[in-house]
């Protein structure tokens, strides 16, 4: 058998699975988004762009877009700052590195449904640790529209920061220590060493990591669905939760798919940005 034929033989099972279960659904959802499809009422007809026209004036949609936007920007920014700080702290670590990484990565590796249940309990008005540590207050963190989104963001920051920290830490380990020693000899220590040495070297990785996290934050579903269910009063209803509700609770397959397509488009936009940044970095390297 020629190498060329063997190559296709080896590739074809994977491509067949991806074609059926990834590419085909990705195209099908575009088609579904152009339909009225409500199976319980036996409705199935062409809608064209009507779902999108409706979304353009749908206040619930714009609220969900706002929630997704705030959630994404706030959690990614916090994860960047906190992740970098943890990475810098870990860089000097000599003993107990494995333990440190295990403690750090635990939050990342847990199922997000577990994280949601954990934080639901931490935020509980009467039984939660948060109010207990605040001296026995009775703040309803998840029930108050003013607090729900920040509380949700905090839970996601806890879950995802380890990922950012790990990638920055891995980059910091590749910086030769003599660079810092030389800087110290030249009188640059502490903050100056950070701004002159650490920051320029870690910045490209941080940027890539944060773009990657942005993709995940736009796609996030589990944590808000389980922790707050989009409530109270829609204050944490993201685009993904709205799409899910339309698809599986009001059973509007066409309309729900249209919201899914919007999420799809947003994610692809960020992905293109991501590939460009990578391309530019490779060109610069």
């Amino acid at each position, binding site marked *: 058998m020629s190498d060329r034929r063997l190559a296709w033989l080896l590739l074809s099972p994977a491509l067949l*699975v991806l074609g059926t279960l990834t590419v085909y659904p990705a195209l*099908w959802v575009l088609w579904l988004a152009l339909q009225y499809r409500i199976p319980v009422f036996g409705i199935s007809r062409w809608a064209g762009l009507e779902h999108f026209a409706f979304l353009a004036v749908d206040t619930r949609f714009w609220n969900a877009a706002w929630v997704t936007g705030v959630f994404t920007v706030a959690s990614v920014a916090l994860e960047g700052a906190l992740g970098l700080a943890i990475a810098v702290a870990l860089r000097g670590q000599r003993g107990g590195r494995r333990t440190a990484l295990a403690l750090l990565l*635990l939050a990342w590796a847990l*199922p997000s449904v577990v994280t949601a249940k954990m934080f639901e309990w931490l935020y*509980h008005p009467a039984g939660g640790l948060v109010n207990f540590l605040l001296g026995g207050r009775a703040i309803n963190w998840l029930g108050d529209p003013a607090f729900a989104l920040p509380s949700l963001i905090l839970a996601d920051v806890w879950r995802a920061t380890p990922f950012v920290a790990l990638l920055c830490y891995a980059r910091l380990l590749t910086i030769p220590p003599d660079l810092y020693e030389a800087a110290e000899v030249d009188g640059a220590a502490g903050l100056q060493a950070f701004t002159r040495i650490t920051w320029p070297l870690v910045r490209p990785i941080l940027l890539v990591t944060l773009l990657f996290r942005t993709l995940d934050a736009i796609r996030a579903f589990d944590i808000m669905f389980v922790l707050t269910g989009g409530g109270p009063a829609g204050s944490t209803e993201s685009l993904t939760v709205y799409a*899910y509700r339309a698809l599986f609770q009001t059973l509007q397959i066409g309309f729900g798919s249209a919201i*899914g397509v919007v999420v799809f488009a947003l994610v*692809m936009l960020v992905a293109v940005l991501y590939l460009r940044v990578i391309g530019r970095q490779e060109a610069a390297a």
Partner: protein
Amino acid sequence: MRPIRPRDGLVLLALVAYASPFFWQALTSMRPDAELLPLTRLLPSHLTWVHYDVVFRQSLMPRALVNSLGIALLSTLLAVGLGALAAYALARLPVRGRGVILLAMIAATAFPQIATVSPLYLLMRALGLRDTWLALILANGSFALPLVIWLLTGFIREIPRALEEAAAVDGADRLATLRWVVLPLAAPGMASAALLAFLFSWNEFLFAYSFTASEASRTVPVALALFPGVFEVPWGDIAAASLLASLPPILIVVGFQRYLVRGLLAGALRE
């Protein structure tokens, strides 16, 4: 193991504090019901196994654990099995459109599940696969496949070609070389890819929540999200159930940390 300096100890302590939400949940899982609500003291008067007892005897968790484990193992097998073959072709054989295929793999890792869940749901229903293991094995396996292919292509490229050439000189054909030279050398990389695929499936919620309808196929995250309470929320039982759901991830970050870290770095840096 290196000695722990005071500074190292401080960082470790800070990380223990960071992980404290998990430790608090562990403590809650052993706290007597009477001391849960309202919370009046930090440490419980005594520890109890009663919540675990309830979870094991009276909840759907035992069945969900079996479902999750089976589905995660089989979808990992699917992703790594198909992924390794494809990756070998992409790394070593002449493939027209290789660049396009690899780019498509990266793009596919960014697909949002919420966009493909509705067509996949209709597809599973049409195939009569609703509420079966197979639906989730296919959905999770195919979702992890692009990342697995991407990782393994990179790992196989790192294997020195000279070893394969030596095997060819000794008369081994391509498939024998793949079986006896490449796969063993790629084993650590395959372990990394497998861990990520397993974690994805173990943690996956949206597909499992949408495609399952009964305990026949409900996974751990779904059972946890739907954890029943009769009159009040059983926080202690939920804590015990979430501890059980956390066991494989804990095993992975403690026991297989090297492979996990390697996979995460290679997957995110996409070099």
